[in-house]
């Protein structure tokens, strides 16, 4: 039985297939989006994503970071695989070969969806850059559409503080977005 509330670190060090599936569900979309925006096409991004998660699966028990979130760890793996692919012109298959993974075909529909995902993942990446309190407040207000008063109770702060965090978070997102475009 996998605890879906477990941290990335706990899931990785648990080391079983079910825990890794939960970990994959948490991260697969942003990894694919991140790689799509840096790869020449959706197919290349899909190929790299498979290699990144194969490497993560192979190395999960060696996760040494004290961070509960494995976001930075996955980002490092993805950057290295991407860098290697850009140098050689193709995604390496080392981790997949070691695991004897079968190829997963990419259809035209998949490519279209991967392209769409890349747009969404920009926002997700920008959110990751926000301080935790602002990110939590923005998600609670904008994504979950909770009332300020409810968020204040949940987060144990005053309503004014929540409003300030949401406001600062959105300003931060806007500044980062403008820098990118």
């Amino acid at each position, binding site marked *: 039985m996998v605890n879906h509330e477990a941290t990335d670190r706990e899931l990785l060090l648990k080391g079983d297939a079910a825990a890794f599936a939960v970990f994959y569900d948490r991260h697969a979309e942003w990894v694919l989006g991140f790689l799509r925006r840096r790869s020449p096409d959706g197919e290349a991004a899909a190929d790299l994503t498979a290699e990144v998660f194969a490497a993560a699966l192979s190395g999960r028990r060696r996760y040494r970071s004290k961070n509960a979130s494995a976001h930075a760890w996955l980002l490092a793996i993805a*950057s290295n695989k991407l860098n290697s692919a850009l140098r050689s012109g193709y995604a390496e298959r080392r*981790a997949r070969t070691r695991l004897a993974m079968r190829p997963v075909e990419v259809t035209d529909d998949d490519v279209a969806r991967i392209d769409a995902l890349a747009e969404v993942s920009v926002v997700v990446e920008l959110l990751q850059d926000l301080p935790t309190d602002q990110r939590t407040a923005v998600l609670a207000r904008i994504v979950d559409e909770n009332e300020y008063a409810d968020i204040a109770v949940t987060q144990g702060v005053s309503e004014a503080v929540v409003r300030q965090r949401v406001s600062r978070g959105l300003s931060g997102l806007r500044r980062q977005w403008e820098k990118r475009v």
Partner: protein
Amino acid sequence: MTGHRQPWYLDRLRGELERVAAIEDQRERSPTLGRLRPALDRMRPSPRMLAALAAVLALVAVVLAVARESDVERPVAAPQPTPGKKVLTDVTDVDDAVRWRLDGRVLTVQLLPFAPDRTVRMVNGTRISATCGTNVALSPADPRRETTLTRLWPAGQTSLSYRFPRDVSEWCRLADPAGRRVAFVRFPGASSAAGPAAGLVTETALKWARLFASSPGICNEYMVGQPVCEQMMCQRVGAPKPIPNCTRPNQAYTESFRGATVQEIAIKGDEAAARFSNGETIRLHWQPNGDWGVTKIGGDAGRGIFE
């Protein structure tokens, strides 16, 4: 998983990952028995066979007694456990297919049966060095921080032991005579900054400089991360468009690294900087696989590390 009803790429990839993860789980649960069982099932030892086995074992015992003084000739060079002495660390690295066993100051490295051919070829009949490190609180320049022992890895042997003169309980790096990494381990409980330090930073910086001088404008194998490669090409990766106000390194600049020597290095956590004899500085970042990679060249690459 993705909120879509139709299975799509990420769902199918998930399925495949689950399949291989389950196989890995099974392998992890019965690492030895699982592989031996089919062979054991086939064997039906007769009394005659048992007698022959006993004779062979006795012969092996005699050979071992004769060879006791030679580390290289010990059976798979495994250290004999000292009664009452605790095995400190036993780490299996599935990625490199290497098992590391640290018993006090004796390190035993064992190639696992599924080790890649490349690794086997690298070590077979070659002098393999084990550079291992201790407490990172020591200054990077302190020679006690890391120790290197080199031994011949006999052809066909699957493991080798190294007896260190001091504590090496933080990390170890195995390398071939050309300095190429065979495997790396950071032992449980080691500091996150533990790793090959001064020697490897210098070595990486020199290798990078040689390649940089001979292949200008190329993102070479010692450079890691997208920013440094984009800086090299003055072009965004993925969406090929020029980076504004970016100047590609000119020939005189790259040539200045030819024959340059490392004059000074500094290490701060996972970051390091190296200053060359041509006055240029590069920044390096510690990689999870035990290597250092160049992340920034020139300009303020040493900022926050040298000061």
